[in-house]
């Protein structure tokens, strides 16, 4: 039972991180129907930026909480800038091109950003300082759940609530929903679609960067390749929940996180990455719309 709970909490932590990344996928897909392949790379760049800032500040001898806060803010700001630029350079000129072109451009961008970090920084794993301090009141159940896990789950919940608020109750959110429903119609009623798309990329990148900082300080090391696997898994989660649907992305992420955690805990850890892909293939074959997605007919 204890082992089960441990795996469950591990799975929820993992799922929370996937959710933070998957939101970016699902929001972008909802609005421009493009799989943003380079999204995982934005997450990776967020983690790297945080690492650099945190290392400099810890050499200067700041205290942990301040470092965590500043590193996260800088990482989020930079990821937003990258997400924005990415859209302007690689996707905006292709708005009217066939979808295959945009997809290939996205793959190219992902390859480019990975190698950019590889060449400018290093190909080795870099140790990431553990920034999240241990909380006193969690000590009695420390055997079950660690502080970083709690912090990750709580942060994710807060981000979800804020994001729901943004989408449901603000003008920008309304514009986003309108654009997702029908881009041309939204344009006709005065929505600046280019701006909405930029904002979507920026918001998605911000949550991904937050996920990057949290998981990096939980696991304790990063390299240039982390974005790829995390990106693919988050994508699987987004598809599992129903791509284009935000609650779906969160639900899918949590389900995938727990499923993976139990699979590695009870069956085998060799095939951990295969497992996610197998899940993906099965959903796409049997329920392509995902758990919460709606299946729509193809427009001619």
């Amino acid at each position, binding site marked *: 039972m204890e082992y089960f709970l441990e795996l469950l909490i591990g799975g929820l932590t993992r799922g929370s991180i996937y959710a933070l990344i998957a939101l970016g996928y699902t929001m972008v897909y909802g609005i421009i129907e493009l799989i943003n392949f380079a999204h995982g790379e934005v997450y990776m760049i967020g983690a790297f930026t945080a690492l*650099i800032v945190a*290392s400099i500040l810890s050499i200067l001898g700041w205290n942990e909480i301040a470092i965590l806060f500043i590193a996260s803010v800088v990482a989020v700001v930079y990821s937003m800038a990258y997400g924005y630029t990415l859209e302007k350079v690689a996707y905006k000129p292709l708005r009217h091109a066939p979808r295959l072109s945009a997809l290939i451009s996205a793959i190219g961008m992902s390859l480019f950003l990975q190698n950019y970090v590889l060449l400018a920084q290093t190909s080795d794993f870099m140790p990431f300082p553990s920034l999240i301090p241990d909380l006193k009141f969690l000590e009695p159940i420390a055997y079950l759940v660690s502080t970083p896990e709690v912090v990750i789950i709580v942060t994710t919940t807060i981000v979800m609530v804020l994001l729901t608020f943004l989408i449901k109750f603000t003008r920008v959110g309304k514009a986003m929903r309108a654009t997702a429903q029908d881009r041309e119609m939204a344009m006709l009623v005065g929505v600046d679609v280019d701006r909405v798309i930029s904002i979507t990329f920026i918001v998605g990148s911000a949550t991904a960067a937050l996920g990057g900082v949290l998981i990096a300080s939980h696991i304790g090391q990063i390299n240039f390749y982390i974005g790829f696997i995390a990106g693919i898994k988050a994508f699987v989660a987004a598809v599992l929940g129903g791509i284009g649907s935000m609650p779906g992305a969160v639900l899918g992420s949590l389900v995938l996180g727990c499923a993976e955690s139990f699979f590695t805990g009870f069956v085998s850890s060799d095939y951990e990455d295969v497992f996610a892909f197998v899940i993906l293939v099965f959903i796409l074959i049997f329920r392509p719309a995902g758990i919460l997605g709606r299946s729509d007919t193809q427009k001619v």
Partner: protein
Amino acid sequence: MFALDEIKKSFLTSIWFMFLTFPIMVIRVNTVENIVQWRWERMFLIGIGSFFLSFIWRYLLKRKERGRKKADRGEVDRISWNRRIAREPRFYIPALIGVCGFVLAFPFIFSLYQTNIMITALIYVITGLGLNIVVGLAGLLDLGYVAFYAVGAYSYALLNYHFGLGFWAALPIGAGLGLIFGVLLGFPVLRLKGDYLAIVTLGFGEIIRLILENWNEFSFGPSGIANIPRPGFFGIEMSLQQATIYLYFVMIILALGTIFVVRRLQDSRIGRAWIALREDEVACQAMGIDKTRTKLSAFAMGATWAGMAGVVFAAKTTFINPASFTLWESITILCVVVLGGMGSVIGVIFGALTLILLPEYLRVFSEYRLLVFGAVLVVMMVFRPGGIVSQVRRTYQFKGTAPDKPNAEAVSPG
């Protein structure tokens, strides 16, 4: 002022990129010894570089926009130079003879090392042409193409290890296994839309690689299989030099065979169905084309060539392990197809030779290879989606004025 405005734009772009690349490019921390390295000269270079690149970027975007407007008005661009050469016999016959002579003489003029590089490039020509069927003609983005390549390579290696099968026996078996895997994997996934297909094939590619890595009893795991024999020629013993030259000619013949088959396929009923499917699925179905079967045949065809190329790859390197079959290999092949021109045979050959030979000869830049590949994919898609040698849509031109007696002339693609 026009120029001042442009300079201001470029200046702002360069400031933005200096800001953007600041932490990753300039700062480097050594977390073990707690040393921070500042590399300011890079920031300077990026500022200058992006200042000039942004001019070129905007100029190209404008040119593309002008071209699109022209096409909208119905004006046809003048026939490009490569098309003119391909059409005039007095240009292309000497060119063809020249290329043939060069190809035949290549292994005797150049060293063993050069010949080996050329063989690698030819393997990419074959895989590129195979992927061209899937991506270029049928418009299905297959990111797990390397899985079939791995199937071919492992089928030769394992059949040779267990049963002592030779290269020539393994070649059709490898191709056949590629075909079978293509059908098996294609069957469940081909109902999916374009972008899902890309991810699922990527998943399949990774699954096959991870299985090869983890299933030690079957594939000998990450350590791979060594001592795979080179192709034999009626049991004659050959030195390394002779074997390489022999393999080179085998590759030339296989490549020519592939080119022949692909061109014939393009002009066949099924080839036209692929192109129609790429252009518009719904319209294609309305015309009575079986969508699943057509897609499946494209997928299986591509996989067959990959299987064959895999056998050759195993025979060439005489050692294989799962590390040769990563996703990046798939993307390299995709890059070959995209750079050369999706759907165009000449384009793919050109793309393979450029992308494989250039990094080999420019060793200094070899670490930037993947970086450049990524940039090539983006830039090609933004500015020249058709590739360097783009496939021209097959058209019929009507000459003469008499409406009752149209003199139709088919313009065949290059």
